[in-house]
């Protein structure tokens, strides 16, 4: 259970940079009123971000991943229950992998 100085410094440096990203964007964009286009773009960012996040692994993931994705979307639409959708998706991937084994 030791903390070395070089490791601590690296962690603190990462912490500072990460906090600057979290809070700095708000601090700057608050004082400078962004153009309407930028503001509208920010509203579109979450959906685009998550699509960009899931697309490469889904395309690379083959049949079980696609079955799992379909199950997640289906269960989420039907129940609006996040944990149920996630568990059903993981179970579907597990099942499909076992079947295709």
């Amino acid at each position: 259970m030791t903390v070395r100085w070089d490791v601590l410094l690296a962690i603190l440096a990462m912490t500072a940079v990460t906090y600057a990203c979290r809070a700095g964007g708000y601090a700057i964009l608050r004082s400078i009123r962004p153009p309407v286009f930028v503001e509208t773009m920010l509203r579109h960012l979450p959906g685009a971000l998550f699509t960009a996040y899931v697309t490469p692994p889904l395309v690379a993931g083959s049949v079980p991943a696609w079955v799992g994705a379909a199950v997640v979307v289906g269960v989420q639409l039907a129940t609006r229950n996040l944990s149920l959708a996630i568990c059903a998706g993981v179970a579907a991937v597990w099942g499909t992998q076992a079947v295709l084994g």
Partner: protein
Amino acid sequence: MTETDQRRVVFTRAGIWRGARESLPLWLGMLPFGLVIGVLADAKGMSLLEAVLMSALVYAGAAQLLALELWTDPAPIGAAMVAAFVVNIRMAPMGAALAPWLDRLRGIRLWGTLATLVDHSFALSVQEQRKGGRDAGYLLGVGLGLWASWVAFTALGHLAGSAVRLPPGHPLYFAAVAAFLSIMVGLWRSPRLDLGPWAVAGVVALAANRAGLPAPLPLVLGSFAGAALGAWIELRGRGMPGGAPRRMPREMRRR
């Protein structure tokens, strides 16, 4: 949001608790990622306390993963900072997008809540805002709930060491993708507003990935390309720059 809406924004203990409760299903998505971080930190020679400190203070999975891939002895301070910046700059616009809530907070509530900002708490809070939610404590609650799970799973991964190492392609890894997909279902508004932007985001991310661009770039390029198209589609009918017809009266633009 209009001025009247913003004035009703509150920050309550109940909101924090509700956010923390609603973060619980997302813990499953954090589990494999946190374990991987813990196991990797152990493999790179970090002590349990160092691994836990990193997760507790940095609290940014993708950045930690990238930094650990680059990790050396002595610790690479410069490389770790670059990794943190490149991966986490995506969070800069998130705080701005949450301005309708954050603008009503001051001091530690504002700057402390921002310290807990992550992808999931952002996504859930945007959803909450769209549903008319007025309690900014919700954002902090989701962030704190996920933080607790993140630190715990990192410790678990480190303790279990190599014993927990899941083979690549293990179904549990799908939990992270599943969490994002369910959130996307909640963010979907209409084919006209979202289909094109999301398709572009996915295709650009995929192309950048195939082109061999390093880890955070496909994500950054894809999300900004998609969001830019989304803004263009939404504004072109309102006589904004980048769009031709001027059908909507000026006062409707901000709705």
